């Protein structure tokens, strides 16, 4: 099993009170695979259905965001590789 990777960057170094803070997280794991399962049902006469496909992510990563000044970070978006979180300064 490979180790996951992550980077975190803020949209500014300094924030004024009340300002919106955005945190961009890039993450991944070589073990994370998208597996596609295709299902076809066939009856006794040999008639088959059209194939139905379903995807499953194997070993997805979970993200935890903590802030030592107890600021609450809320997820804005997450596409599986890039996640954006938001907080108020």
């Amino acid at each position, binding site marked *: *099993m*490979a*180790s*996951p*990777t*992550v*980077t*975190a*960057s*803020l949209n*500014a*170094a*300094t*924030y*004024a*009170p*009340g*300002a919106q*803070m955005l*945190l961009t*997280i890039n*993450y991944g*794991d070589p*073990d*994370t695979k998208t597996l596609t399962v295709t299902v076809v049902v066939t009856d006794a006469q040999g008639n088959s259905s059209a194939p139905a496909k379903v995807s499953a992510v194997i*070993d*997805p*990563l*979970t*993200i*935890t*965001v*903590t*802030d*030592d*000044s107890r*600021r609450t*970070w809320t997820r804005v978006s997450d596409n599986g590789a890039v996640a954006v979180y938001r907080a108020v*300064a």
Partner: protein
Amino acid sequence: MPRVTVTVRDSTGQTATAVANYTLVPPVLGGYYLSGNADPTADMSGGNFRSLTQYRSFADGNIFPGYNRPWLVTLGRSGVQVNMVLELKHYGAGDAGPQTFTVDGVSYTVPAPAMTIQQRPGTVWPKAYGYSQVIAGQCDGLFARALSQYRTMGFGVNIQLASELDTDHEFGTTEAGKAYTWAESDVRAVQAMTYIVNWFRVKALPQNTTFSVGVGGFDRPSFQRTHPESLMSRLDFLQWNVYATSPSHTALDRFRRTKDWAVADLGPVALSRPILVAEWGVRVAEIPDQAAWIATVPPAIARLNAERGPYFARTNYFNSGWGTLSPKATGLAALRAAYARPPYV
């Protein structure tokens, strides 16, 4: 420095961690000045006013707290951050001759002010103690008198030397019959300001004493001349004043102007200092809806403080002269509302 930590974890418990540090600018102190150095207590009461500007002449025998101004002690002891503008300028009232007085048992004689400043054509030029007089040590008694009174206050203040050096020098200065250009006056002032700050800094000062040098901030070359790193290393704040005097003036543009010059022209020591706006105001003649303009100040300051460069730490509204609030109640309500919002809270 606050830190946000991001951890990703897979199903087997393997993790990776990344951190990002950030800085939070403290809330900006919303402040005030009331015309004539008058008691602002009633105007400030109940509002988030945490900063105050006062003006005194070194020529005055009553600098701290000032003649008949016990309320300044009350405000300072209650936590209001006081910016005391101490000027070499003689305000014109009383005797402008030499003074002899005793401070803590030591007798001092200080000569009459030998300089003229604010030499606008067609006006009476105010007198001021001259930069050469300061550097020659002839004004030490004035500083000793101010310090002795300051030590009785019970709290630290920011001592802002000069109100606006650029306004003082704009039309040149004259000391002891010799005329100096604007640029020459700036250079001389830097030497005198350095002398005064150094004079105070080697004395025992009340806790939280800070220093700045005042400028209007309306002239870029002068701003650069008056902010050498050698002087800024002795000061705690950058300082300038901000006025809206045209319908086209926005809060963002007006507060930004001098900051942009600072970022472009000044050195790292100067840029490490926060900004103290001793005066800001909206002139009602050109901007009748003062309240609407005032309401745009908090987001402007928040935005500027989120950008690189020095941050605005205190902004004191100048309810006098160009900034006179008219009608007062409406303007004051707008000021209270502004100071109740971020970045003032």
